[in-house]
C-alpha cells in the first residue's frame, strides 16, 4: 500500500506540475481508522497528503459532478464504471479527465472488523499484502483481508478499471467462481409477506439522513424527489411507509446505472444494507437486458434505448 501511495503522489505531482490537470482528486488518511477522507489537491506540494489503502471505499466519481476544470482522479474498477456512467450521462466530459486507474483488491468492511474485535476501539490499522492488523488499547489482531471485504467487493467481477489514461501497476486477476446474486436469489425464494417483512426490517433504523443518496455519484439531480415540496412526493417524517418510498424510488432512479460500488452502504450511520434494493435492479438489468452499468463509453444503457426485442413480459 505504501508503494501505491507513493506512486499516486508522484503521478499527481507530475500531472499538476505539467499542467495536464488543474486539480487531483484522491484520498487522504483519515483521523479515524478505516475512514479515509476524499481530498482535492490543487498544487504539487499538497500531493503528499494523498494516501491509499483498503479503506478508500467511497466513490470519487461523486466529486466530479458540475466541475468545469480538468481533473485527475483515482479510479478503482467500480469507480471507473461510475465515471463512464457519468460521461455517457453528460455529467462530465471525457476530455476533462485524466483517470488514474488502480487495480483493486477490494475494500475492508469497517463494520465487520469492528464486530470481529468485539467493538473495542481500534486506534490504528496497518496493511500488508493480503492481511491487515488492527491495534487498540491492550489488543492487536491480524486478519486476512479476503475475509473482511465489503459486501460489494466480495462479489465484484470488475476489479480492474475499465477506462483510464494511466494505470498504477499490473492488472489484478478477477475473482473466479463468483455467484454475484445469491443474496437476491435468496430473497426471491421468500413468500410475499416475508419479503415485505424483510425489507421493512431492513430499513427500520433508517433516520433519513440521506448519506446513502448523497454518497452515490448517480444522485446528482438538482432537487431530489424527496426534497420536492410542490408536489410533495413523499412525507418527510420517519414514517415507515415514507421511508420505504424513499428507498424504493431512490433505487429505481439507479436502475441500469448502479455499479454496485457499495458507497451507499459504506456510509450509512445505521448500518443499513440498502444495496438490497439496487441489487435486485442490477440483477434484472443483467438478466433481462444483458447489461452491467459503466462498461462501455459507446453503448447506450437499456433505459434510454428501445429495441424491438426488449423484455416486455410484464405488459399484457
Amino acid at each position, binding site marked *: 500500500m505504501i508503494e501505491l501511495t507513493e506512486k499516486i503522489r508522484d503521478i499527481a505531482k507530475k500531472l499538476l506540475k505539467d499542467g495536464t490537470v488543474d486539480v487531483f482528486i484522491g484520498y487522504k488518511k483519515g483521523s479515524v481508522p478505516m475512514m479515509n477522507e476524499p481530498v482535492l489537491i490543487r498544487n504539487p506540494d499538497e500531493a503528499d497528503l494523498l494516501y491509499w489503502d483498503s479503506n478508500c471505499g467511497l466513490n470519487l466519481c461523486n466529486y466530479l459532478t458540475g466541475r468545469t476544470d480538468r481533473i485527475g482522479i483515482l479510479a478503482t474498477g467500480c469507480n471507473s464504471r461510475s465515471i463512464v456512467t457519468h460521461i455517457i450521462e453528460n455529467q462530465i466530459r471525457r476530455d476533462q479527465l485524466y483517470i488514474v486507474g488502480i487495480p483493486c483488491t477490494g475494500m475492508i468492511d469497517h463494520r465487520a472488523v469492528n464486530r470481529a474485535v468485539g467493538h473495542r476501539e481500534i486506534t490504528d490499522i496497518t496493511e500488508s499484502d493480503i492481511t491487515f492488523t488492527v491495534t487498540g488499547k491492550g489488543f492487536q489482531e491480524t486478519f486476512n483481508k479476503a475475509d473482511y471485504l465489503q459486501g460489494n467487493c466480495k462479489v465484484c467481477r470488475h476489479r480492474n478499471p475499465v477506462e483510464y489514461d494511466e494505470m498504477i501497476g499490473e492488472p489484478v486477476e478477477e475473482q473466479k467462481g463468483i455467484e454475484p446474486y445469491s443474496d*437476491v436469489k435468496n430473497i426471491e425464494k421468500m413468500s410475499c409477506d*416475508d419479503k415485505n417483512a424483510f425489507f421493512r426490517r431492513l430499513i427500520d433504523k433508517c433516520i433519513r439522513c440521506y448519506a446513502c443518496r448523497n454518497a452515490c455519484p448517480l444522485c446528482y439531480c438538482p432537487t431530489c424527489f424527496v426534497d420536492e415540496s410542490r408536489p410533495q412526493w413523499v412525507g418527510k*417524517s420517519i414514517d415507515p411507509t415514507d421511508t420505504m418510498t424513499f428507498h*424504493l424510488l431512490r433505487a429505481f432512479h439507479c436502475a441500469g446505472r448502479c455499479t454496485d460500488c457499495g458507497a451507499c452502504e459504506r456510509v450509512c450511520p445505521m448500518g443499513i444494507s440498502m444495496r438490497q434494493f439496487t441489487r435486485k435492479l442490477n440483477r434484472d438489468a443483467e438478466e433481462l437486458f444483458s447489461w452491467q452499468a459503466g462498461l462501455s463509453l459507446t453503448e447506450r444503457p437499456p433505459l434510454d434505448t428501445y429495441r424491438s426485442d426488449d423484455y416486455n413480459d410484464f405488459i399484457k
Partner: protein
Amino acid sequence: MKNLLEHTGLEPGRLHFSWISSAEATKFVKVAKEVSAAVRALGPAKYLVKRRAEVV
C-alpha cells in the same frame, strides 16, 4: 418497477401493465375486467399503505 416492488413484498397481481391503443376498446374492457378481478381476489392492499404518519 413491477419486479422490484414484488421483490420487496408487493403481491404479484396487484400491479399490472398494459399497452392499449385508443382504438382498442374491447381490449381495454377486457384488461380492466381482468385487473379488477385480480386485484379484488387479493383483498385490501397492505403494502405501502399509509393511513397516517406513524410518529409519536
